[in-house]
């Protein structure tokens, strides 16, 4: 008796979501749309960027004091993506990096378009490259690039 052919059938699962970002990230995204990166101050005076509703160190709400940060900053740590996939922010080799923007005390995860892995190092200076068309999303920062580029 020959092996039966296994059953196979199509199954496409699509499910859509939307986000209510709240007052803090709402202000941050609005700033990005206008080409401005902002951090929020904690009660202890630290500047968080990306901003958060609550200070992770204390659990207390952050303040309503906002500070413009960047567009330059420093790479704290990074990883190289040699073969980007369709969903990645850049369609050529790039780095994912934690970037501490000038004036901020925390780091933002974003892409760095350095061209070559050899140019990447912790401590390197980068600056934000804004997208030409912006709509209040994290992609409004197209990526970061080396400051000396």
């Amino acid at each position: 008796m020959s092996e039966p052919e296994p059953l196979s059938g199509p199954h496409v699962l699509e499910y859509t979501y939307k986000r209510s970002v709240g007052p803090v990230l709402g202000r941050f995204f609005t700033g990005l749309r206008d080409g401005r990166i902002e951090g929020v101050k904690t009660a202890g005076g630290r500047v968080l960027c990306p901003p958060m509703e609550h200070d992770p160190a204390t659990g207390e709400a952050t303040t309503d004091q906002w500070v413009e940060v960047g567009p330059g900053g420093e790479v704290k740590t990074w990883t190289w993506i040699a073969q980007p996939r369709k969903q990645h922010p850049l369609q050529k080799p790039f780095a994912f990096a934690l970037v501490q923007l000038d004036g901020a005390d925390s780091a933002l995860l974003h892409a760095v378009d350095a061209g070559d892995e050899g140019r990447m190092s912790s401590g390197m200076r980068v600056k934000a490259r804004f997208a030409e068309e912006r709509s209040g999303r994290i992609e409004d920062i197209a990526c970061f690039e080396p400051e000396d580029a």
Partner: protein
Amino acid sequence: MAELCGVVGVGQTQHDAKREDVSQVGLIREAAERALEDADLDWKDIDAVVIGKAPDLFEGVMMPELFLADSLGCAGKPMLRVHTAGSVGGSTAVVAASLVEAGIHDRVLTVAYEKQSESNAMWALSIKIPFSATVVAGAGGYFAPLIRGYMMRSGAPEDTGIRVAVKDRENALKNPYAHLKFPDISFEQVESSPMLWDPIRFLETCPSSDGACALVLSSEKLADQSKKKPAWVHSTAMRSEPTSFAGRDQVNPQAGIDCAKELYKKAGITDPRKEIDCAEIYVPFSWFEPMWMENLGFAELGQGWKMTYEGATALDGDLPVNMSGGVLSTNPIGASGMLRFGEAAMQVRGTAGEHQVAGARKAMGHAYGGGSQYFSMWIVGAEKP
């Protein structure tokens, strides 16, 4: 249990169809801050946090407890997530209570939530898998045949469900946090509302809500020191069974029967109808009130509908059920179970406001989930057990 556990704080959000004014973080924080305020405590007083919500698919954030931790003061503290579908709000409270009862933590904050406006949970679990039987009709489509089954077995009058809906919607008018409020609710209004899944009418159905609930649980020593009167946890129980197996009775699931039996045994209760003063029971479709009355042993088999009919479950009846307006009026899925548990605690603390049952000393909170397969329950009392 080794240690006693007291509910010293209860908090909930303003529930609504769309809380677009807040993020998920803002939503849970609103409930948690109210619970802490009720307990007269601060974030630093909390030893551990237990978070619950229905499946991650509902908002599309995998393991949201990780990003919520910072906003719940969890940094450097133990944090635990509980998963048991729609019963999760109850199970989460049970897990939190067990941490206190076991003497592991002295003060636990527990939070449950759902932000249904971020997606469409009604259809989230109605997936059509190739070669499998599928409902694709939402929760109501799943439960309607079970209700028909109950009607056939019990011979309950066709309008029993309408009466439950009118009662719960009237109760919701007395609850400032309730989502759905129909000021002129009447039998005729429910009866004439569209039939969604025969025999379930539109006004016999729960809404989709955004909301959260939070409780602060303390050890006996700390609860004794709290300014407001605690609700003492007398017993907790959880049971589950598979969605389908040969001979499964989905109308009157064995897991629910067993869970209630264990709950009463632990609490020393032999006649629940007489000994329990009021109950918050998970009723997402009106007919589940009489069905659960039987499953939980408050009524003989086939007799549950009479409790509704005779007004026993009304706010002034001998066993008021869903004084808050229940799941029929407010359904942030993950939080719905904890709201039942929290409302039960409010009753025995005497803090339920307009929907307070006078002199309530012992109250039950109940939650179920999945295809009537997960159960969690607790009994709380004004006095120590």
